[in-house]
Each structure stands twice: as C-alpha cells, then as structure tokens.
C-alpha cells in the first residue's frame, strides 16, 4: 500500500486536491481499515484535518451550525449541543470507543462504509459490485428488518438517527457548488443498481450540519442497544424529538409533535411516522408510556434471525419516552 498524502489548508484547496482518484479523509478511522482491507484503492490521500473552516460549532439566530470536521468527542461534550440537542450529544457519546470518538468526525461518521460482516469479509456482495446479498439468507442477526431493497445491511451511524430526528440539514459542496439536503433525504438504501448509502456525489463533501433553533419546549433523547455495554454498533437504537406544551398554567401538558427515528433496523435512519402520529397530540404523562400501544415497525419483514429487533425497538422507544419524562 503506497500513496502520497496532501494536507490542504482551505476548502478550495481540498476540492482541487481531489482528482485522479484521490480520497479525502478526516479522522481516518474508517478509511484506513478500508485501505488495509484492499476495499479502497488510491495512490493519493487528502487529509482534511488542517481545513479549519470546516470545524467547530457556531450558534446563529435561527440555527446551530456544526462544521463537518468537528469530532464526535467534541460534540458529545459540547455544552450547547448537550443542552439543546441532547439526542445528538448522546448519539456521539454512544458511538464507537473513546479513541475513535477523539479522531472520528461528524462528517466522516455520516459517510462511513457499511459494517455488514459479509461486506467487511469481502464476500462479492452488492456493496462490492457483486450480484447477491449474502447476509439475507446467511448470518442475518444484525440485518435490516425494514426499509431494505436488495442489500439488507443497516446504516451504522448513531448520529445519523439523531440528525434525522432533529430535522437537521446537511450542507455539501462540490465542484458545482453547494447544496443543502434534509438529513432525512440524505441517506439511501443501497440496491443492486446503486450501492451508495447516501446521495453524495463523488466530488462532493459534507461541509456543515445545520440544526434548527428549536423552542424551549423541545427535548430529545437517543437510546441505543448493543451486544455489550459499550464499543459496538447498534443492534437497534432510537432517536426521539418531542415538542411538549403546557396548555395553560397548571393544566396538563400535551405532546405537540413527536419525531421517532430508529437506527440499526434499516439501511437508513428509519422514521416511524405511524408512531409519531399516534403520539402527537396526546396527554404527556406516565400513562402514555405505560398504557400506550406501540405498534412499531409494523411493516417489517424480518429475516430468519432478526425478528427480535422489532420488540427491541419498541422497548427502546418506551425507554426513550420515559427518559424524556424523567428529565422534564
């Protein structure tokens, strides 16, 4: 494995360095293993770590803007993010290991490759340009139960789920200029013809993530189930954003709107509109959680070994709602 490496200082330099099959990278926590596995071939790497304009958290009147190079550790510990966008801070904190969170960036995390064990073990599957999904009829305990096409992998990112729930915008820039994509529109389920996991073009990079400046009545939470306590990808997870209003002083409170996004169950952050609708407009109290019927992932088509994810998703949603109640 031989390559040269460029260290652009500005975004424009980074864009022009990206030619002849060069590869951008930020933390490198995913790209370096992919290079070592021979999944990615390049003779030129472009290290983005000196492009300072892509780093940091800025609060404006109507939004909070996060530079794509901001690390997961920075976001997990960021006071403003923790206060206003708790689900994102929690998702960053629950991702990977401390070492990876120190290196890994938000932009890189959203654009990481699949963790499907068949993909990572170099089976000639769709993601490798093959004509088959090996996980579908194989060891599919970790596979998607819903929202999949030909490939049944799940999107590995934790922050992605939080960003969809928080109604974030993702700003990308390429040779043709800049465009802003709703987080919900950014991710896509790979299929036989197009194996991309998101809508980025080859010449584009994520530059910024924009979070709306939500009202004080908004709260959010991210809950993740893993095979062990830490350092693994989600078996399932849920990001929830709730808007809660008091009708009048002393009166009961009402759940105005709810956004519920499941991770680990689909090739994209999976928004559960039915449950959102069910929750919206309800009295906001304990009974909602204990007595509510949560028919989550009703359209799921589980495979041989992953039906447990449906029950797990329901349990996580209830835990998330309880956490919101407790942290009122």
């Amino acid at each position, binding site marked *: 494995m031989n390559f040269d490496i460029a260290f652009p200082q500005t975004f424009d330099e980074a864009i022009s360095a990206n030619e002849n099959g060069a590869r951008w990278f930020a933390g490198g926590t995913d790209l370096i293993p992919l290079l070592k596995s021979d999944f990615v071939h390049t003779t030129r790497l472009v290290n983005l770590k000196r492009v300072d304009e892509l780093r940091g958290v800025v609060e404006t009147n109507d939004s909070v803007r996060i530079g794509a190079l901001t690390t997961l550790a920075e976001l997990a510990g960021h006071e403003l993010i923790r206060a206003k966008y708790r689900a994102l801070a929690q998702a960053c904190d629950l991702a990977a290991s401390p070492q990876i969170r120190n290196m890994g960036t938000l932009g890189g995390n959203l654009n990481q490759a699949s963790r499907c064990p068949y993909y*990572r073990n170099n089976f000639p599957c769709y993601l490798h340009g093959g004509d088959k999904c090996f996980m579908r009829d194989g060891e599919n305990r970790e596979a998607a139960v819903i929202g999949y096409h030909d490939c049944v992998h799940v999107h590995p990112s934790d922050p992605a789920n939080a960003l969809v729930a928080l109604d974030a915008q993702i700003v990308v820039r390429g040779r043709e200029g800049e465009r802003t994509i709703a987080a919900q529109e950014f991710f896509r389920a790979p299929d036989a013809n197009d194996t991309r996991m998101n809508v980025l073009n080859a010449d584009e990079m994520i530059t910024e993530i924009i979070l709306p400046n939500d009202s004080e009545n908004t709260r959010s939470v991210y809950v993740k189930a893993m*095979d*062990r306590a830490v350092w693994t990808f989600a078996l399932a997870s849920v990001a929830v954003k709730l808007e809660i209003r008091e009708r009048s002083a002393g009166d009961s409170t009402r759940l105005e709107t709810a956004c519920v996004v499941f991770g680990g169950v689909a090739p994209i952050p999976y928004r559960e509109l039915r449950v959102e609708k069910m929750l919206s407009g309800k009295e906001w109290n304990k009974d909602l959680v204990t007595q509510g019927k949560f028919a989550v992932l009703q359209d799921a088509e589980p495979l041989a070994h992953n039906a*447990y994810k449906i*029950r797990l998703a329901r*349990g*996580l949603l209830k835990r998330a709602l309880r956490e919101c109640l407790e942290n009122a």
Partner: protein
Amino acid sequence: MPKLVKTKVENEGRVTEEFTWVETPKTTVWDVEEELRVVGKPIARVDGVERATGAAKYTTDIQLPRMVHGKFLRSPHPHARIVSIDASEAEQMPGVRAVLHAFNLASNRFSSTRDFFQNPVRFVGDEVAAVFADSDNLARAALKTIRVEYELLPYVLDAESAAQENAPQVTPNGNLLDGKPSTYTRGDIEKGFAQADVIVEGVFTTNAQIHSSLETHACAVDWDGKMLTVWESTQDVEGIKDRVARHLKLDKTRVRVIASYIGGAFGAKFGAGKYTLLAAQTAYQLKRPVRFVLDRRGEQIAAGQRSPTKQYLKLGAKKDGTLTALEMTHYTNVGAYATWSPFVEGPARELYACPNLQTTGYTVFTHSFPFAAFRAPGFVEGTFALESMMDELAHKLQMDPLELRMKNYSSVHPESGKPFTSNGLLDAFQEGARAIDWETKKRRKQEDGIVRRGVGMASQIWYGAGAPPAYAMIRVNHDASATVLTASQDLGTGTKTILCQIAAEELGLPFERIGVEIADTQMGPFAGASGGSMTAASVGPAVREAAADAREQLRHIAATFLKKRVKDVRIENGIAKARGVEKPLAEIFRELDNLQVVGHGSRYPNPSAYEIRTFGAQFVEVAVDVETGEIRVERVVASHDSGRILNPLTVSSQVEGGVLQGIGFALLEGRVVDASGVALNANLEAYHVPTIADAPKIETHMIDRADVLANNLGVKGVGEPPIIPTAAAIANAIYDAIGVRFYDAPITRDKVLDALERMEIGA
C-alpha cells in the same frame, strides 16, 4: 541422599509420568496457623510499573537490525485440494527472501499429525504459504501475488453432522479423535434412573470462545552461528526450546528461549507454532533475524479456541435431592486439528457423589477452527450445562439450589474413592451464601417491573495441584540481596511477585531485597509450562526449597562471623542474630568480598494416597430488562478454595479476570460462522470481549486455608477455577429473575428477546 523418582504428573486431567530429581526436603509445610511475614500479604506486582508505563519489552517489541518478516497466506476454503501454487512473482520481488509452501518445503512435517502446509487444507484459515521479506508491508504485498489453484472438496462444519457415517472426511483417520467416543461408566445407569423420583433432561450448546490475547502469537529469532535465540510469547519456554532444537537438529544447549512479558495466553500459547519453527529455520538458513507475528485475523481463526459443544444431560434424583443417576453425552467440535480432547465430562464425573453415571464424549473433527486449551478447557463448557441442569432439578424438587448441592457433596473423590488433601467446597458455599445474602434473596418473589433482578449460584471443581519436575535456584548476591532463578514464566498472573515473596519469607530477607529472573532458559533451571493452574504449586515449593538451602548456608557463614553455634543463628529481615549479637548480612557480605551463595531446590512428588482439587462457588446477581432484553450482571461473589493465599492482590486479579472471561462466555463471546465456513467476526470489533463497562462488582472471598498435605506452601492453583462456574451462575440468576432457562451460551440479546416474546413476558 537425593534420588531419581518417576512420578505421575496430572495437568488438566491428563496424566503423564515424568522423572524428577528429588532432594531430601529441607522444609516442612507452613502450618495453617503459621505467622508469615511476607507470604499472604497484599504486595503489588514487582513488574507492575514497567507493564503500565510501556517499559516492558514484549515479544512483538523485539526489533533487530536486518530483520526479516514472516507472513502467512491462508486458505479461503474450508476443504480444498491445492492443485498448484504459482509464487514466481513473489519470489522475484526485491526484498522477498523466501516463499515456502507444500510443494517446495524440504520437510513439510510439522508434527506427528500435521504438516506445515496441509494439503488438502482443512479450514478457512489453514496455512497455504509463508512469505519472508525485508518488511512487513513487502511480505503482505508479496502474499497478494501468489496464485493458488484449489479443487474444492465437500466439507462439514457441525460436530454432530461430522460424527455421522457418511460425513465428508476431515482427517485420513476419520472424524472422531481416537476413532471412537470416550466412555465412562460407574454403577448402573438404568437402575439409577429407575430409583429416581424426578428426572430432568436438557440439551445445551456452547459457542466457541476465542482467547483474543492482546499480544497475538509471535516470535523473533536470531541465529548468531553458535546460539539460536528465540523470543516467544509463550507459556512454556522450555517446551519451545525443546521443539525448536529438534526441528533444527541443534543441541538443546544451543537454543535459548525468552518470554520476559506475555501479552495474554490463556492456554493458547503452549507449543511452538508453525510460525515459530518456520521463523527459526529461515533465520538459520538466511543468517538473519526473523520476526513472525500473527495478524489479528490469523490470531482469531488459526491460533485456537475453546471448542463449541453440544451436550445432552439427564439427571435423576430422589425426592430429597439425592442424585441417583447422571447421563451425559457431548459432541465437541475440535475443528480441523486437535491431539487431545477438552474434558467436557469432567465436572459431571467429579463434582457430585452420584453413584450411577455414564458419559459418552464425541470429540469431532470438522472443517472449522482448531481447538486449543483455553482456561479450564472443557470444565467451563461442562459446568455451564451441569450446573444449569442442577438448578433446574432443584426447582423441580422445590428445593433450594444450594441445599441440593450440599446434599450431593462428595467428601471423597467420586471416581477413585481417595480422600482429598483438602476440600473447601462447603466453606465456599457458606461464605458465598453469607456474602450475597442468599437466604433472603433466594426467597424474594419474582419481580414484575421492567427491570427484574435475580440471584443464582454454581459450583466448581478443578485441578491445580502442581507437580514436578520444577527446579529453582537462589543466588545470594554480593550485597546480600537475592535473586530467584527459574525457567518458569509469568503469564501476567503475578508469578514473579509470589516467587519473590516465598524467597523473602524463607530467606529472612526483606521483600525489596529479592529479585527474580524467569522466562529465560539460559538463566534458570527447568520449571515446566505455566498452565493448568500449576505454576504457583509447582515452582513455588521448589523456590522455597532453594531458599531454605541458601538460608542454611547463610546461617553457617553468619555463625562463623558472629562466633556462635549455627543452631543459634537466625536471619530476620536481613540481619543475622544469635544470642544477643547481631550483624546485617549486607555487612558480612561486604567483608567477604566475592563470596557467592547459591541455593537449589526441587519440587517433590505429590502424595499418591490423595486427590488434589480446587473447589469453589460463585453467587451472582443479575438484572434483566424485559423490554429491551438487556442483561446486566450486577454483582459476583466468588468464593474459592485454592489452599493458602500467597498474595491476595494477585489472587483477586486472577478471580476478576476469570469472572470477566466467564461473563464473556456466558453473555457476549461467540464465533459467527457463515455456512461457507468463513468466520465473520475474526477481529476485536465484531467479536465482543467484555469491556470494563460490562464488569460488575466482583468480590473475592477466598477460603484461605493451607492445604498441608499438598506441598510445602499449602498452595493450590487459582488461575482457572474462577472462570468455571460463572456462566452457569449467571444463567441460573436469569432464571430466577424472569423464569426463563437458557440452554445456549452465549445468552445474547436476540435469544433473550425471542424468549421474552415467546413466553409473553413484559411488554
């Protein structure tokens, strides 16, 4: 007079005969009540700081000028005949020094049952070729150019299928080790079940557990024309020396093996590996140092594992809990290669006084990952099944699970009928039950909230007697400090520290004045492999003998100096004292200039009229979230009888490590194998060992009582016992919490959630 003795040596249930040179013992056992100054004290590890700071040089740290680096090409197929290998491109790459494979190796014989490069290959990961090149990267690049033509052959991955008549053949001698199942019978099994009031049956499976040592198997070899030096991450420096010498047809005195620090072994690092012998022969031929370090994938697939098992159990008992019959059949999947079988039926045969018993063990070859010893091989798997089944029996009898175990306690060894040198099982029951408050907790009503707590327990029996041959020397240095010399090794258990403690105690020197040189065949005398919980009880007594020998010499020297009779001289804290006069040993030695005192000692045989075993019990509290299937082990009380405790710190770290690995086996660890025979989680990301966040409160309660019949220290092993009962205790606690019994380890989230769904428990 010293004499030559041939004695039986037991290691993990396998008995061999060894010669040992036995000197007249200079020591008698430290009694139960003996007041000891250094032994038994919580002394921090002598090498703790260097390990923690990174100063310690591990095998993988060895870098020498002009070093050549070895790497393996591995089979992508579970069973295939290699038709041809084209390595011409690799051979022509500048800096590639050798490419070895089945068709060009002068002698392809690795062992009596294995070739270096087996053809046909027998599992995904079998070695196909090795490249030696000037850099690791170059070796990797060269591997990619090798073209291998395979003829694919039918394969079988599952043990029960492989044991069938028409299964694809794994070895030329069939698919069963020794060609037939191993059977054991005592009493009359039919009669036993006829006498039973209650019968329980269960089918259990356990998945593979992979050692996952942080330091992969590794060696570095340097040949200077006279001496071949091998650095190896190993549990057995002497074994490596022997093997490498035979392979290269060198005299044993011309091979030196060093294993100063070992980054994890757990049973997988006994013999010389293929990489060791190929590195040695390449270093010898090229006259250049060679380094061969398995990469992580190689470590996880080709360096051994605790083999998957399937166990059929049937227990019969009287209404009062007395066992009348125990029948057990197991299929143990030892993969493509194994020369012995993990003793899965061991706990069933030895733990309880059951008069009628029958076991049948199928040790089955398959086209999958080879077996290697792993911390209490067989007993971890066997105890999970046996102690889960006992728990089920107790519930069926509406009996306290602890009471059921006490009811079937065996005061003598149930097979041989011999008494034990010591047996602290009942004490461990009592102590563990007290610590966890068993009486209250077992009567707790099953909870009905989201998070439900439960308590469970399981017992343990294991070996750990230690044995000869093991020799040690004590060198008293010119400043009256002393050095322990023995070719044992410290796996990270604290061997160095306890040997210093023993020497300090016996010599009458302060602990700080003792150094230790081990894990170098050129430094100390033979001390055997470190495994089977043997080291403390094998090497420790020899060190004490050597220290006693040195102390006698010191007393003679001091007597001359103090002008007193020898019998009046004693040495305390480095000071020679006799009838009112005293002089520090350091002062005496200063005046004696180049005086050198060397003491030597050997381990004498174990008493033949007794059985030596370690015993223990663990009590576990778990919390199960019935909505998310999350199992949290909240507390583990580990109460074990390993005789005298030499150092409570090193013992509790052994217990904590064992319990953690037991938690991994119970809840997290397992190999995921695709139907194609490929291991899907051959890395530390997808294979889940417990992290510190998974660690519960672990409380060590040792029954610290010297085994005065076992050896001069009264010590038994402690390395393996703590991993043995953990999984069953956890499974039993889960049953107590939610009323669901799990028969398959590891008990992962999907199994828990599926069971909760099936049983309509919780939301």
